[in-house]
């Protein structure tokens, strides 16, 4: 496994006409993680993934994956991508689809793809057009995994799937990640799923990067404080307040801690991932520095 970042974007942007779908995106993703890509609709998640998959050229800045440009002949065979609509040829059978995967990809491992579809009782003779949503997602995943990618990009892979199909999709994906050590970047709105699957998080909103780091570090760096509103100013002076709910009697602050919180007037509790993401999504201006130097953040327990 390489120690250089598996995906590195520098001032990356993409414009469609007048509108920027992604802007000033600077992130660096280390190898060997399952990275959750979250953000509201239209935040640029699909754009980022499509640029990383070599399907879209940037309008500004640069992006490198696996040490090269996504479209490099050296890089492309090591990249797996499953698009949001999971495009499969409807008239091909599942077996045809896997055979096609074998023809098109040099490092193809067909036995494995077949075995995992077999495990899920997906008939190889069935036409892709008549598969259920969950089966379709599994075939698309099998196709991407058969390529034995070092980096797997998944754009909303479980949207519209029932809970069981979602669980099965993640089981197969994570088992493959455990097996091969590949890096996965997965976009989703389902924060509970991402909390289980991902150990790294990128939050895009309004076309910019708001948060990027190890989930554990992000959670460790933030706290929810409850206390007297009169002392909220002192907290805001010493820490970064991400969100604040103030009433006459009580203040509830979500802060990025810059040091210990000593004032006993505040009740301090850890933050849950969903709470953290929602707080940042609600405050699109919070945290939009290009790359947050989380490793140096104090106050981790």
């Amino acid at each position: 496994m390489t120690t250089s970042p598996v995906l590195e974007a520098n001032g990356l942007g993409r414009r469609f006409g007048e509108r920027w779908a992604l802007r000033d995106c600077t992130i660096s993703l280390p190898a060997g993680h399952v990275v959750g890509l979250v953000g509201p609709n239209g935040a640029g998640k699909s754009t980022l993934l499509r640029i990383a998959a070599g399907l879209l050229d940037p309008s500004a800045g640069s992006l490198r994956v696996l040490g090269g440009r996504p479209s490099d002949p050296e890089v492309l065979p090591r990249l797996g991508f499953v698009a949001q609509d999971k495009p499969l040829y409807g008239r091909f059978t599942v077996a045809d689809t896997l055979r096609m995967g074998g023809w098109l990809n040099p490092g193809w491992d067909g036995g494995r793809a077949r075995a995992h579809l077999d495990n899920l009782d997906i008939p190889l003779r069935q036409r892709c057009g008549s598969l259920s949503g969950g089966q379709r997602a599994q075939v698309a995943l099998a196709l991407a995994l058969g390529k034995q990618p070092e980096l797997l990009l998944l754009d909303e892979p479980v949207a519209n799937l029932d809970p069981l199909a979602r669980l099965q999709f993640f089981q197969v994906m994570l088992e493959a990640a455990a097996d091969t050590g590949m890096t996965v970047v997965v976009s989703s709105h389902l924060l509970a799923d991402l909390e289980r699957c991902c150990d790294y998080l990128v939050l895009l909103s309004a076309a910019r990067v708001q948060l990027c780091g190890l989930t554990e570090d992000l959670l460790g760096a933030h706290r929810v404080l409850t206390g007297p509103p009169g002392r909220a100013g002192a907290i805001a002076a010493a820490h970064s307040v991400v969100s604040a709910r103030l009433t006459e009697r009580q203040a509830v602050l979500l802060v990025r801690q810059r040091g210990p919180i000593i004032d006993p007037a505040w009740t301090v509790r850890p933050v849950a991932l969903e709470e953290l993401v929602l707080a940042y999504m609600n405050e699109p201006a919070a945290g939009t520095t290009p790359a947050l130097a989380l490793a140096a953040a104090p106050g981790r327990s």
Partner: protein
Amino acid sequence: MFEFQLDPTSGVATYLQLVHQVRQALRLGVLRPGDQLPTAREVVAKLAINPNTVLKAYRDLEREQLVSARPGQGTFILRTLDGPDPGTSARFARELGSWMAAARAAGLGGEDIEAIYRATVRDTFAEGVA
């Protein structure tokens, strides 16, 4: 083979839940020295959790010298964990019982008592500054 479970409502970090389950199984004698823990891949495939989460839990257990990882073979239990001696537990349970009876007699309700209990546990076992 030992099976892990997740409690998504507990609010406890996933890797800590795994660590606690092994410790608990050792206290109860469900796991004994020489037993093998499921591989990271098996845990991941069953629970759909991040592989690094399992590895982190196993590293923690290794650091406590409760398990040892044998390359290419798996992770094995090294020793048991003794819970508190039953007599000691019973003594403290009795003392807590009489304390609670006194608190109730003084007009405190279940929630008041729980608040005191939680705050005291937190202060006594505080991890660093928070």
